[in-house]
């Protein structure tokens, strides 16, 4: 039982450990912030799909969304929060640890 708890997969956070959300966090980690259109274009997502994943990340306090206008055009920016940065670091550490177990 103790072995199970020590297993690196126990460190995975469901909000983070999902390919699209992980990719969003990686982009935001690198860019600091990005707008909705850039994320959509870069990750090849639909409006609905990206909106859903961003909402999940925002609900978990991992990203911060700010909506505004540029002229008449609405523009939504996403920014990685401090807990988001920590969560991504933890996720990457857990993934590395898992790979180490396989000796890769």
């Amino acid at each position: 039982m103790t072995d199970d708890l020590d297993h690196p997969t126990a460190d995975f956070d469901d909000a983070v450990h999902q390919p699209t959300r992980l990719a969003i966090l990686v982009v935001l980690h690198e860019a600091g912030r990005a707008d909705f259109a850039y994320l959509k274009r870069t990750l090849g997502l639909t409006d609905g799909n990206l909106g859903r994943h961003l909402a999940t990340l925002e609900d978990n306090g991992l990203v911060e969304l700010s909506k505004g206008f540029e002229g008449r055009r609405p523009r939504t920016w996403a920014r990685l929060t401090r807990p988001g940065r920590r969560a991504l670091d933890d996720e990457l550490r857990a993934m590395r640890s898992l790979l180490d177990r396989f000796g890769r």
Partner: protein
Amino acid sequence: MTVMPTASDYADLRRHVRGSQHARSFPLLVIGGLLVNYAVTNFQSSPVDWRYGAPLAFVLIWALGKINEQARGVGAPRGDYLVAAGAVFIATNSLLLFTRFAADFRGLVGAWVIIVGVALVVLSRASRDAVLLAAGLTVVAAGAVVAEAGTVYFGSSIQGWTFFARGWSILLIAAVGTLLGLTGLLLYRSERAEP
């Protein structure tokens, strides 16, 4: 079934983001331009240009990043170029307090170029960028050569016919600047190709 992306997928993603940010080309183009500018400005007659040139170059890199942020929707490169501008300004001007540098233009020019290179190295470490690191180390090396072995006189020397109007110390700085600028230009072209 959802397939987790591999580490190389994320490495590609990071590369893509840096390309969108022009995180490499902007610093190389601007610092390259700064060093070429250093070479065509007479140091002895107008050292003031040199004092403000380097801090302004780092401010310009920051400004270009912010303009790009609005245009492409991706944040400015990490590593605070404004902080670097302040640090470079303080470091370069502080050297004038020391007799060794205030009385020896060769040492001063070399040291100022070294400071620019060190700033680039520090920023490259923050963004884990090997190209910027290599560029920073090259600038540091050029500054060290000029400080240690450069010619003392840095003004124009157009007496009789010579191909270059500057001594080799200044030409070395210009050559490194040109190299950085050309590398930045090539990188800019490839970064622009990113969707």
